[in-house]
């Protein structure tokens, strides 16, 4: 059953057709990868999904509700979390505080005036954050200021921040971009483990085919804003159209 369904989405920027009639179904408990050469419209699509952009036409339905016209924070509250290409974390705050914020957001909603209660007394939230941190092996860094961590740790922290919200759909925007080989492997392992343990639904944009093929259950290939093919990884591997699209890119 598709938890996210994109139908006939169009988006133009001036004369440029960024997205043309994109259809996409992300099925629950699967990992759906979106690949394509640069400028294929992957990021535009992602921005439509999280409410940053509003498409000119088409529909995006998440769990039976349209997300179009909703603010990013509302879409998050519906159960969609996003990991960015460059980690978006609260750099000035400690790791623990970074973790607590999504916990509160999940429990209290978009805004709550909880100005008198002490954070120390939020035992449940602290426990939840700690268990998530230990899941990503960062419990020992809980009092560290986030900006002082390595890039890989920042990425893991961001992922943990998304996961602690128990999202129904996790969007990953090139989660391994700019990472060293070993870090990439770690990330893949982490994602795999989490998927196995939590039964998470994921949509991932990725350049690295290695990552794509080790994680994805289904792949959509975008080229110049149009969906080219949608199929299983095995079928995509040898698909002529995909080759063409990528080779075309290489020639340019």
């Amino acid at each position, binding site marked *: 059953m598709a938890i996210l369904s994109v139908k006939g989405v169009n988006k133009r920027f001036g004369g440029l057709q960024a997205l043309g009639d994109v259809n996409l179904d992300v099925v629950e408990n699967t990992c759906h990868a979106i690949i394509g050469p640069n400028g294929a419209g992957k990021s535009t699509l992602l921005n439509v999904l999280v409410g940053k952009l509003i498409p000119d036409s088409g529909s995006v339905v998440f769990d039976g509700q349209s997300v179009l016209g909703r603010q990013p*924070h509302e879409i998050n509250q519906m159960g969609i979390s996003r990991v960015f290409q460059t980690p978006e974390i*609260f750099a*000035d705050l400690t790791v623990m*505080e970074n973790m607590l*914020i999504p916990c509160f*957001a999940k429990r209290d*909603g*978009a*805004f709550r*005036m909880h100005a008198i209660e002490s954070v120390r007394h939020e035992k449940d939230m602290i426990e939840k954050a700690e268990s998530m941190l230990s899941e990503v092996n960062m419990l020992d860094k809980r009092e560290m200021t986030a900006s002082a961590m390595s890039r890989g740790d920042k990425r893991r922290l961001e992922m943990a921040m998304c996961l602690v919200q128990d999202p129904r759909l996790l969007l990953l925007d090139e989660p391994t971009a700019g990472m060293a080989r070993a870090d990439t492997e770690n990330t893949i392992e982490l994602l795999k483990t989490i998927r196995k343990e939590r039964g998470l639904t994921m949509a991932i944009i990725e350049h690295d085919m290695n990552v794509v093929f080790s994680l994805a259950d289904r792949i959509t290939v975008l080229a110049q804003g149009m969906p080219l093919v949608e199929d299983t990884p095995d079928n995509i591997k040898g698909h002529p159209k995909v080759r063409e699209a990528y080779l075309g890119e290489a020639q340019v």
Partner: protein
Amino acid sequence: MLGLDKKDSTLMLVVIGLVIFAPFLLNPFPEGSAMAQFNAGYPDLMQRFVIFGILAIGFNILFGLTGYLSFGHAAFLGVGSYAAIWSLKLFTLNVIPAILFAIIVGGFFAWVIGKISLKRSGIYFSILTLAFAQMSFAMAYSVLTPLTGGETGLQIKNTDNPLIGGPTDGSIGRANLFGAEMGNSFELNLGNWVFTFNLGYYIAALAMIAAFYLSIRIFRSPFGIMLRAVKSNQNRMNYTGLTPKVYTLYAFVISGMYAGLAGGLMVAMDTQVGPERMFWTASGEIVIMTILGGAGTLIGPVLGAGSIKYMENILSKINKDVLHQWFAFLPDGLEDAMVVFADIFVGKQWHFTLGIVFMLVVIFLPGGLVEGAQRLSARFGRKKKTDTTDTAASTPAE
């Protein structure tokens, strides 16, 4: 204690102690001695210390935590003051309704201005708040004269007839707390020392302690973390399902209410309001106080407020005569030279010292006076128990 952890409780106790014993602490020099000039333990200045302390604490909740630099905060102080004086003139001479009224009006005004100004961020936000405050000032000074008294401001007059309990003998009503006047105080003579305990001061001090306590609670609350998140990364907040603007608006309103409280207390202590209270220099002073003390720290803004008010009220009163008294022990020529030299920094040149202090502090103590205090305690080789900062101190506000 009271839901604070050990470190905060210690800090709280230290602040309470300082505030209660301020009449002693601020009057260290015996009457009549040359150094008595430096005594600050008289009601007016003590009241100003705590009132501006409240103002800076409130400002710090906005600026220190969210990083939003309001350059029009004096407007809330001003409208709070006007609200309070009208309450004294029309409703009752009791200060409690006046102060409550000031808080409400300050908060409401902040809500209106914040709602509009928060559509922008960074310098654009600062200029919007500045523009609103300057408009308020200009209008209070001129067109709104019937409401604000214009340049001459508002005072209580003998013709005022408050709804409840005004004086009947034609004398000028005085602000009071259930009959006890703000000016009441008693003096304690110990040897050559005179210590003044003033009712108004202790009321203001109580308000400051409450304000400070509330500020600690806010700093340590989930709300406080959210405000620091606003400063750190609004984008991530949005994608975490949170509304940074709403959080900021609440912080803005809270700090507006603090400013209103300060304005109300100012009127309660000294029953008059003038429009200069809303001029941009007054807003700038609040900003400078907070940065000077250490933005984002709990106690910093209070220190900053105290030191600026101290310089304003003490340095400006040192004239050549006083200097001659100080240096009288020197030979004549040297005495004159010293007087001429010292005169550059005091009396009518007190602004000069102020400017130099700003520069020195920011150059050598990037975290403000709080950092100076930390370095001092570090130098004396013991871990200061009352570590006055919190984690936000390591990342000065922007």
